[in-house]
């Protein structure tokens, strides 16, 4: 399957079938920091990704809130 990652943008290939949980573990990504999106739809951690799926791993952390002031 094709996997797109952002910030920085890159693309990796991985063989399916593979669960979302295992995909993130293999890429050493903390599940708390990303969403996995297949097509236009979120894929839950137990979803199985097929060999011909196109998957985006979208980082959800955004920064910059003006220093430490509330």
């Amino acid at each position, binding site marked *: 399957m094709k996997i797109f990652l*952002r*910030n920085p943008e890159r693309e990796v290939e991985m063989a399916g079938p593979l669960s979302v949980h295992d995909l993130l573990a293999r890429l050493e990504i*903390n*599940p*708390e*920091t*990303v*969403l996995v*999106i297949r097509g*236009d*739809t*979120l*894929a*839950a*951690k*137990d979803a199985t990704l097929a060999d011909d799926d196109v998957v985006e791993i*979208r980082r*959800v*952390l*955004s*920064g*910059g*809130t*003006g*220093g*430490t*002031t*509330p």
Partner: protein
Amino acid sequence: MKCRRCRGPAVIDVRRHNAAFCGECFVEHCNEQVRRAIDRFGMLGRGERVLVAVSGGKDSLMAWDVLSSLGYRVDGLYVGLGIEGYSEESARYARRFAARHGLELLERDLPSDYGYDIPEGSRAGRRAPCSACGLSKRHVFNAVALDHGYDALATGHNLDDEAAVLLGNVLRWEEGYLGRQYPLLPAAEGFVRKIKPLVRLGERETAAYCVIRGIDYILEECPMAAGNRHLGYKELLNDLEASSPGTKAMFLFGFLERAHGRFEDEAEDERKELRPCAGCGAPTPAEVCAFCRLRMQAGALVPVELQRTGE
């Protein structure tokens, strides 16, 4: 995984609630979390006018979307920061959302309305870019909300933002900041009421909400925010959250319920020292406020102008 509510196939899990949701039930869950935050902290009354500070990112667009769907009268405010290749792009997302939902978007632009941009303000003011940006936005958001008579200014700060800010404030024991870190800051002389209705939702939930609701938001990170301390705190907290789900919520809400009150006196003492800025009239502990000083340092405001506007 099955949806906790309808038992249909789940698309998102929220580990700290030990729950998973289908798309439709997840949107309901988010609306409920916002409603609970509004009620718990007394953020808004019925029929009040709200201005949402909109950046084009997931959190602020979600705040706008949820508050609108809960029936509040909500307009957006976008402030252009003059960051090349980023500010125009983020403005497009804010405008597109407003147009698609028939909502009103107010706009201000630092370079054309105030005479400087964030790279220049950061350089001239010898501040980190995020510090110059935060200072500028806080000033403009407050000023526009007051000028237009809004009852409250809402921002998209989420649970992760607030937990990371809390960690930073605790590490340095910033007592005044700790006293002011609360999801509701009541209106005061020169200040509009400020509310953070997404405080009960994590960053992963706000992103998931946008994907499910089909809200396009800017995915690129601000190029000037890369490597800042705040992001580092978020990474640390997420490492803790991975091994112990619920840590961020316990940290933040434990502080709000059990420790915040101990710092209110410091915040109150600081508030008592505020007086109107000689330049713009905004409350400040100095003769000239930090926003006007930044403009002066960036060459966008000269002392003559300052005296004239202060008369």
